[in-house]
Structures are given as C-alpha cells and as structure tokens.
C-alpha cells in the first residue's frame, strides 16, 4: 500500500513564479547594487520595515533549505567543516557559509552582499554568531536587534518599548546605508498588507480543521511559506494568498482531501528533513496520514490564534510579532499549549516530533515534550531524529521502522477503541 499523493494546484506554479522573481531581484541587486538588500532571520522578521526603503530581504535559511531539497547541501556543509565548523554546528549555518565560500546559490544566480545584515535573532542565539561570521566574510555592516525571549505569558510593556526603540534605530541605520529616506506611509501600507495576508493565511490554516483536510498543513504548507516571508507585506502577497484560499476552499467544499481516504490526522513539530523531503513525505502517504497542523509553519509567524499586524500601530505590532508571535521566541510551555490546541481543535490522532540533530537549541527538551503528551495527556506521540539540512543524519530504515510501528500501533488502538 504505497500512496504518493501530492496536491499540485495553480498555487504551486504561482509560488514558483513569486520565488523566482525574488531571486531575480537579488541577482539584479548583486549586479547593480539596486534594490538595497537586508539579511534577516525568518522567525520574527520585520519585512514590513524594509518596504519603507523599497529594500528586499535575504533569508539565509530559505537559501539553505532550497539547497537541501535539491540534494545540494552536503558539498557546502563539507566546505564549512573543512574551515573548522564542528560536526554538531547548525547545518543551516554550515550550508550558508559553505555557499558563500564556494559561490553557490540555489538558482545559480548571484546573491548580493547585503546592504545591512540585520540580526533579528529570536530564540536562536546561534544566529548571532552566524551573522557575525557572515559580516566578517562579506564585509557587510551588522546590526543586532535584541529580542528578549518570552519569560511571561504576554510580552512585558518594557520589552515592547525596548524592541520599538531598536526598530527606530534600525530605520536610522538603513537611512544612512541606503541613502534613502524612510517612507513611513509605505511602511504603514506594508503593515496593512501583512494584516490582510495573515488573515488569509489564518483562514487557510483553519480549513485543515475540516475532515478530510483539503491540504497537508506540514508538507503542503511549506509551499506557501516562501511567499509568506518574502511577499507578506506586498500586494502580490495578498493576491497570492487570496488565490490559495480560494483554491483550497473549493477543495474543502468539494470534500477533497489529500488522500482518497484520510486515515490519520497528525500534528507535526519541528522542521522536515529537507534532504529527504520526498522520501519522508511518502512514509506518511503510505498510511494516508495527513498533517492538519504544524509548528514549523508558524516559524515565520503565528496567526491562526488571532494576532495580526496593525496599521494603526505599525511599530508596536511589528515589535509584538517579533517578541511573541513566532514559534522560536516562545517558551516551552507556550509551545506545549500551541500543540495541545492543535490536537484538540484540529482533531488530530497523534503528534510527530522531528528532532533536528544539528539544532540543539530548538530541539533540546523535545524528549520531555514527548513525555508530556504521551504520559500526561495520553496523546500518541512519535519521536524521530534526523536533520533539516545535513543528509548524513537521515537513516531511512530506522526512521521508516519508527513511523510504520507508530501507525501499526495507532491502527490497533483505533480498531479496538470501541472495546474500551
């Protein structure tokens, strides 16, 4: 029983076109110096601010994952290791540094030296070193926005003020570096575009509550995530997500799921193993198991529970997004709560935790997370280990055995549920 079902609607082509147009802009910037570019981390990015300068974001993580999914990540990783990076350093970092050294890009075009390296590190303090190294290699200026980690349920007022103050400093910095005056109205409009995109994206996420879900909220959601980071604050982002919502809504209304029959509904925690993306997806397709929610799809922003950027408070809402509304800056209890809500409100049968070997920062504690869900809440939870970027950590036979055994066990408990 092998089922290889993958949804290929018009949104996939639109997504490709949008991402290609972005890479072409970066290539142009590399050749002509225009438009200005800013390197950022995906999680907690402030792409809206860049719009006030007509600047384009560079996301090293997107470049790294594009390489991995095209099976091209090992060479740059090895190049970085030759330089002295350790085996257990973040593989995204190594792939990115290796690419810089070897001049590799996922599309073959050029990547520009950023006008500014803006280290908006949230949760991931590896980013500090990553961007320091990038600055050293490229010679680009580095500015760090210090985002305090979530220590309370809501961000503290002082934290919001602290981040807003730094955003204003970033504006000054960018004015100096680009020679352009900050266009506040354009920034406000960008924040409004984000609000609309987020509303559409949230509606898409909620479609997965239907049975069957019209799309896989892990594997298919990844297709939608590129435009979310790059085009969120632009009219073309709004248009893209309008089209995506219409297409998926039509599927939902027609009762079309990802599989002929949706056997299992899952919540996924952690990023996918990009070097084996297809193999990994097929392991779930075999069991007709559909992800109805995923934490990875909230790395760039968490909107399905109501948060939106606010054009009436543009700086404050950007600060709130950076502080609280992305998965990596949230503490473990908030992460537990997010997953628990997914299981309950999206009606999932179980949870899959994918531990990333080269990301101790985000993965440490997932063993306890598994214990919490299995022992305290009684939710079947599978824990598997590999890597998001480094193909050497993926042991296919071992992962397949774990996944098959998990579904065999679910099959058993589903079938016998009426006895107990």
């Amino acid at each position: 029983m092998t089922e290889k079902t993958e949804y290929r609607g018009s949104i996939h082509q639109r997504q490709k076109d949008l991402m290609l147009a972005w890479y072409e802009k970066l290539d142009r910037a590399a050749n002509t110096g225009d438009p200005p570019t800013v390197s950022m981390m995906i999680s907690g990015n402030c792409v809206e601010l860049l719009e006030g300068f007509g600047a384009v974001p560079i996301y090293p993580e997107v470049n790294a994952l594009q390489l991995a999914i095209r099976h091209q990540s090992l060479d740059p990783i090895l190049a970085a290791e030759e330089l002295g990076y350790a085996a257990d350093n973040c593989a995204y970092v190594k792939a990115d540094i290796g690419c810089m050294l070897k001049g590799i890009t996922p599309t073959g075009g050029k990547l520009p030296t950023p006008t500014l390296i803006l280290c908006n590190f949230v949760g991931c303090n590896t980013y500090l070193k990553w961007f320091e190294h990038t600055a050293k290699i490229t010679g680009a200026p580095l500015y760090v926005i210090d985002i305090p980690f979530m220590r309370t349920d809501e961000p503290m007022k002082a934290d919001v003020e602290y981040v807003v103050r730094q955003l204003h400093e970033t504006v000054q910095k960018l004015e100096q570096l680009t020679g352009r005056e900050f266009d506040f109205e354009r920034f406000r409009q960008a924040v409004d575009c984000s609000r609309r995109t987020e509303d559409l994206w949230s509606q898409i996420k909620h479609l997965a509550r239907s049975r069957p879900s019209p799309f896989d909220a892990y594997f298919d959601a990844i297709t939608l995530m590129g435009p979310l980071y790059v085009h969120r604050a632009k009219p073309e982002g709004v248009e893209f997500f309008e089209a995506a919502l219409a297409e998926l809504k039509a599927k939902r209304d027609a009762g079309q799921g990802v599989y002929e029959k949706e056997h299992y509904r899952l919540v996924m925690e952690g990023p996918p193993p990009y070097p084996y993306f297809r193999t990994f997806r097929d392991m779930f397709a075999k069991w007709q198991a559909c992800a109805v929610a995923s934490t990875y799809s909230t790395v760039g922003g968490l909107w399905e529970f109501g948060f939106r950027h606010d054009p009436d408070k543009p700086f404050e809402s950007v600060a709130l997004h950076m502080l609280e509304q992305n998965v990596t800056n949230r503490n473990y209890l908030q992460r537990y709560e997010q997953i628990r809500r997914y299981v309950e409100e999206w009606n999932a049968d179980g949870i899959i935790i994918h531990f990333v070997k080269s990301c101790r920062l985000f993965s440490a504690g997932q063993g306890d997370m598994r214990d919490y869900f299995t022992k305290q809440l009684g939710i079947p939870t599978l824990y598997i280990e590999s890597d998001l970027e480094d193909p050497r950590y993926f042991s296919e036979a071992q992962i397949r055995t774990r996944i098959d055994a998990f579904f065999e066990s679910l099959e058993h408990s589903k079938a016998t549920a009426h006895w107990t």
Partner: protein
Amino acid sequence: MRIAAGVDVGSTQTKAVILSDDDGMKILARSLVDTGANVQKAAERAFDKCCAEAGMQTADVGYIVGTGYGRYKIAFGNTQVTEISCHAKGAQFLSPAIRTVIDMGGQDSKAISVGPIGEVLDFVMNDKCAAGTGRFLANAAEVMGIGLDEIGPLSLKATRPVKIATVCTVFVESDILSYLAQGKKGEDILGGVHLAIAKRTVSLARRLNIEPEVTMTGGVARNIGMVRALEEVLGRKIEISPDAHFMGALGAALFAINKLDQSFEFGTWKGDHANRGGH
C-alpha cells in the same frame, strides 16, 4: 489447519518461525542463519531451512509476514510488519502478563510498552548509532579475544567491575585496551561493559512507564551477563523465554496466522478477540 510463517531479517541474523493453529497455536519449526551481505538470500535460506525443519514444502505455508530491518527485501513474503509490533505480539503471546519488552538486537535496542492483547502502546528506540547494542558487546569480545558466547558468563564473575565511561561502540575498544594495560581482570572489564549497556538501555526504557512483567527479547537475550546486569540496574526480575531470540519471527508468524483467519489486517483491523474469547 492453517500454517503460516514469520521471517525476521535482522542486521546480524535472520530468523524464521513456522506456526500452525491446529489444536491451539503451535510452533512447528525455527531456523537461524547469519544475514551476511545478501539480505534477500538470507531470508530465503532461513525460510527454506525452517520448512525443511518442519518437514514441509514452502508451498504448504499459507501466509508469510516479513519483519526486521530487511523486511521489504523479502521477495516471497506476503506483507510486512515492523519488528516493534512483532516483538510485542510474540512476547505477549508466550507470556500474557508481559507489559514491557526490552529488545536488544545487533544494531539497535528498543523498549516497548505492550497492552493486554499484545498491542504496542508506546515504544522508544536507541539513537541511530550502535551504542548500547549487540554490536557493542561483539566489539568488546573481539578486543579481549574471547568468544561472544563466553563474555556473559565471564562477566558474572566480576567482583570489582570497571567503569566504562563511553557507550560508543568504537571508543569502547580503547577503553578496554587501557584497562587491560592496567592489568585489570577480564571479568571485571566485562562486568563494566555489561553494566554500561544496561544503564544506557534502562535510561532509554524509562522514557516509557516500565510496567511489570518485563521480558527481554532479541539476540542479546541469550547473554546471561546482560540479563543479570539489566535486572540489577532495573531493580526487578526479567523473564526470558527460550524463544527470546525468535520473538520477532514468532510475532510475524502470529500476524500471518491472523491474516489467514482474517482477524487482522493493517488498514482493516478486525481485532483478534475471536482468538481470545471476545471482549
């Protein structure tokens, strides 16, 4: 009478079991071969040997379930079930009170929580390296120049087991060489080796709720030193079946019998309550 087989293609050895459901479930034959480089051939050899042992033709076997890491390579098998489900099924069949299975094989170890009808409630596996597995013991035996069958009994003679700091299958060799150079006794070194694995395995198993009764399955269950070390660290008795090594193949054969009487099929489970007088 239905006759079915289970073939467990492990990393080191391949096991086969033939079962009949005539007059209660009965094991007709068992076989064991080294897996070697050709996984497909190993499965064939184990199955042919088992049929010969049972005095029957391969065509007499109504259904074959493959398990173990090489389960998808068994060309003649009808379907595949993971070794995790098979060990749980086999162990609980032989001893209905079993609730925890510790399976230690050549290259991996697992702990499995088992429900009252042999279903897997939860499981954990070792990391993908061979730390804490049969391979670790095999390396230790080789470095010390002692047969694999002898290291368990010898380890029981340890009076002052050494501390083995590493659980790395490769680095353990240098640890052992250094103890040998210090003039430590062989039994004390082996006592330390067994304890190191036992501690690692128990810490893995404790991620589950370890409920009694506990059994150990897989090839390493034949090593009495390992069983005693696990009992010591776990603080409770471990039941060992004479068929511990064949547990995966036995569980697979039980699934195969269930397939024949249509009480079980992954995807269309009908339950095996018929075998147990209903619920």
